[in-house]
């Protein structure tokens, strides 16, 4: 198996080198040479944002080091364009692979081929002339939720203004500290400007026993509450307009990201970050987010210890794991279905707590060190209207429910003792939209059964019965076997 996979990889590499792509006329010297990889097992691109000049010549290479097939489609900068493109891709049906999962619609501007492990594909194109944010996605089934990014297009002048931190400068200090000193009262060793506007310790060229004070200007788009994130090894503090916003002083590793909030007006604000390093590992990571500003990194990752992720991948068959999951019940069962839909069952309350689109689980927190910490869901959670075990008697009464176990033969199915009757509840991905399909089997049912749900923001359908708001009444003759489909009305957010 492993040898075979290796052979395939080798073949793929040989093939791609044999069919080395050459640029079309006029693109021999592109303005931008962008390489985008895939974070293995995570259903994420390794680059989720890049910037090109309006009308510039772009060479873009998708490198697939993941175990799954991926593509990359750059879309128009319309609202909800990725949902439109993803939906069109899903409609392609069984022949989708022939067209590389690319729907033939005007929303798709440029695209790579769908490529498998070890392959890469290069495309050349002229960037749109209209500045804006052009999303890109992978349209392989289920990948759209998390394999996204944005190509920003701007004119040259605008690009320059979009530095993360304008007029960024540093002052370097030498000394041994266990806490941050008052740098302003100390003589600095040297100072300088940082042109690309990104805080990066590697530019200081120091390993141990030094300190630095970074100053610069950030441009706030919209007034309101802003959150600043800070992590460092060793100590650091972050000030905006002279006010302390986050402090992470003392000697430590980058154990836990700290954050602080501050109300800012639209416009430019003075940012200052003080940092010191003793010996050993060094890291400084800062970012911010605001009302009209998605989290933006203000530092370079190179110096930082990568957060360890131990992803479990789902391929052709469902994966069922009993684990602690972040913000979920203690007796959780995390189920990963093929095509990027996952859900979390609560074996205590006998209900589906939530679903998520994207990759499955990071089990690192459960496995590393002493373990036992909650696993992280990888992707975007969606609600399924959970109000506990969803079945009621014909007259709307709740009955005690007790978990009896589950089966992993085919679609995962949970068995529940519901007021003395056995209920088999199997849960699959909905066939359309983002959601789940519940199949209930109640062999001993001989009366009407009600299914109840918090129906806000959900689209509901069923094989039988009448809906009234969030209550489905299943007539007795169909109560032994019926299905309910729960999909999110809005889909996963852009």
């Amino acid at each position, binding site marked *: 198996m492993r040898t075979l996979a290796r052979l395939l990889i080798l073949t793929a590499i040989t093939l791609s080198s044999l069919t080395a792509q050459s640029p079309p006329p006029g693109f021999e010297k592109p303005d931008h040479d962008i390489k985008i990889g895939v974070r293995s097992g995570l259903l994420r691109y390794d680059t989720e944002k890049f910037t090109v000049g309006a009308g510039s010549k772009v060479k873009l290479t998708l490198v697939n080091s993941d175990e799954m097939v991926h593509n990359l489609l750059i879309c128009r900068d319309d609202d909800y364009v990725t949902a439109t493109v993803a939906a069109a891709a899903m409609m392609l049906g069984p022949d989708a692979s022939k067209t590389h999962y690319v729907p033939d619609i005007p929303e798709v501007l440029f695209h790579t081929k769908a490529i498998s492990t070890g392959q890469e594909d290069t495309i050349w194109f002229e960037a749109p002339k209209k500045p804006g944010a052009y999303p890109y996605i992978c349209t392989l089934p289920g990948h759209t939720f998390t394999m996204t990014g944005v190509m920003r297009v701007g004119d040259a002048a605008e690009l320059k203004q979009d530095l993360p931190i304008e007029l960024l400068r540093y002052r370097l200090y030498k000394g041994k500290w266990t806490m941050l000193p008052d740098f302003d009262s100390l003589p600095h060793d040297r100072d300088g400007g940082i042109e690309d506007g990104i805080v990066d310790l590697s530019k200081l060229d120091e390993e141990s026993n030094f300190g630095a004070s970074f100053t610069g200007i950030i441009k706030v788009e919209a007034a309101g509450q802003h959150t600043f994130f800070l992590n460092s090894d060793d100590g650091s503090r972050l000030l905006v307009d002279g006010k302390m916003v986050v402090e992470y002083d003392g000697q430590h590793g980058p154990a836990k990201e700290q954050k602080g909030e501050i109300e800012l007006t639209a416009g430019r604000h003075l940012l200052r970050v003080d940092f010191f390093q003793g010996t050993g590992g060094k890291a400084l990571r800062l970012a911010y987010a605001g009302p009209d500003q998605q989290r933006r990194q203000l530092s370079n990752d190179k110096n930082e210890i990568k957060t360890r992720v131990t992803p479990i991948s789902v391929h052709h068959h469902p994966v069922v794991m009993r684990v602690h999951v972040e913000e979920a019940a203690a007796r959780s069962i995390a189920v990963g279905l093929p095509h990027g839909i996952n859900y979390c069952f609560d074996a205590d309350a006998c209900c589906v707590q939530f679903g998520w689109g994207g990759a499955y689980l990071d089990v690192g927190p459960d496995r590393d*060190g002493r373990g036992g910490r909650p696993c992280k869901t990888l992707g975007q959670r969606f609600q399924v209207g959970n109000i506990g075990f969803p079945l009621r008697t014909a007259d709307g009464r709740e009955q005690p429910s007790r978990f*009896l176990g589950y089966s992993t033969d085919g679609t995962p199915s949970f068995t529940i003792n519901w007021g003395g009757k056995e209920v088999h509840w199997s849960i699959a991905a909905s066939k359309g939209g983002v959601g789940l399909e519940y199949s209930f089997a109640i062999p001993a049912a001989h009366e009407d059964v009600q299914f109840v749900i918090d129906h806000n923001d959900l689209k509901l359908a069923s094989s039988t019965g009448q809906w009234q708001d969030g209550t489905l009444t299943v007539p007795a003759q169909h109560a032994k076997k019926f299905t309910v489909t729960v999909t999110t009305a809005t889909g996963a957010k852009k």
Partner: protein
Amino acid sequence: MIHSSHRHTFFAVAVTLLVGSKLSAQQPATIPAGYRVETIALPDGVAFGVSGLSFAPDGTLYACTREGQVWTLSNNEWQLFASGLHEPLGIYVAPKTSKVFVVQRPELTELIDQNGDGRAERFRTVTDAWGLTNNYHEYAYGPVCDSKGNFYGTLNTTLSWPGWAGSEEWDVARVHDGKMGRAAKYRGWSFRVTPDGTFEPWSSGLRSPAGIGINAKDELFCTDNQGDWVATSCLHVLGKGDFHGHPSSLTDHPDYADLDLNSITVEKYGELREPAAVNFPHGDLANSPGEPIVDDTKGKFGPFAGQMFVGDQTRSNVFRVVLDKVQGHYQGCAINFIDHLQSGIIRSRFASDGSLWVGQTGRGWRSRGKTTFGLERIVWDGATVPFAIHSIQLTKSGFKVRFTRPANATIAASKEAYKIERWHYKHHANYGSPKFEQMAVPVSDVQLSEDRMTAHLSTPLHAGTMYQFNIDVTADNDQTLSNHVAWYTLNRLYE
């Protein structure tokens, strides 16, 4: 179509052929003569923190892992039997029916291979009656099964002190500022599950009872790990209704339902508890012991038949426990056996050929040894009788030290060969206990039996005291003792 491709994938992934599965291991620093250690090859590329072992009647070994899988080993071939379990810490294959049970964090589960493809696809909940939060310390251990088909297991307390837990959400039922508490029902209890699946709390007062054991008389034992309210790691006898000393669990005891557990004094808890039968001096012998296994090999594993073997998760050693019944209560001695193996040990099992299989996981508490997980087998050559302290028992006037083979008569009859110290531990909310009033114990007389295998020592005796024996005796063939230190927990005296 789909089904057949599924099977194909399964076999391709799950079966690892082993060529020469038993690799000879580097032998431990301390190992009695006649014993050797073999390392068992594990499936390639699988994190395999062994957390449970059980042999099926056909000899197939079932091993569960902290990573949530169950593997079988048969004819030198590993096969994946189940996956997706929540940190199972014990597995039991019923000797008559071959049914497979595990205790995982949330429940006692039967794993059922319904379609006979060698892989469980049905997970039947036998009981999930105990409470659970997402606190990492809420381990569940077991099961063992008695002759009537009842299951038993133990439940860890919650790590409650916010300074260690990192949150106040689990700070429930900490007593006198101990570290562990009870954030969910029956934490700190042992339990019984009847064959029809009814859960019954069995005994209370446990802290971190990482291993449960049973003997042929259906007597139950478990070890507990040193910490708050546990002076040093130890072995408890689990009598129905017993309170073992850690108060947080009393929250779920009907007699304490309306009481503030902090209103009861430390001294009172000391009186209420059934003291540990055998203490394992922390740092000297054990730091975090796993399950006690009775040597039921009838001599196939050497001269220690009927004794208990316990592995330690931190020290990676295996030691022996020899029980001594005094006034109807068990107490006894502990003696190191093999020190140390390749990784930390919480589970072991005797195979039908009399070898002791030792499951290893070093994850979490930094075990000694070169690997973070593994599986080894300790084998006796069937002939060599090592010179060892077989057992120490209490007499009315002192102790009876028994050797595994005749001793050198001159040395074994001299008082100087026996250096004895004593001390006592304090039962309190603090994390562990120092040794109090440590002092030498004089030996006033030694009488060696005619077969030169038993030395009767006359010494002063004090109840509630640990005795440490440092014995410098050689065998009649000049062999030295494989382990010359033993510890006797003297709870009760003969009247």
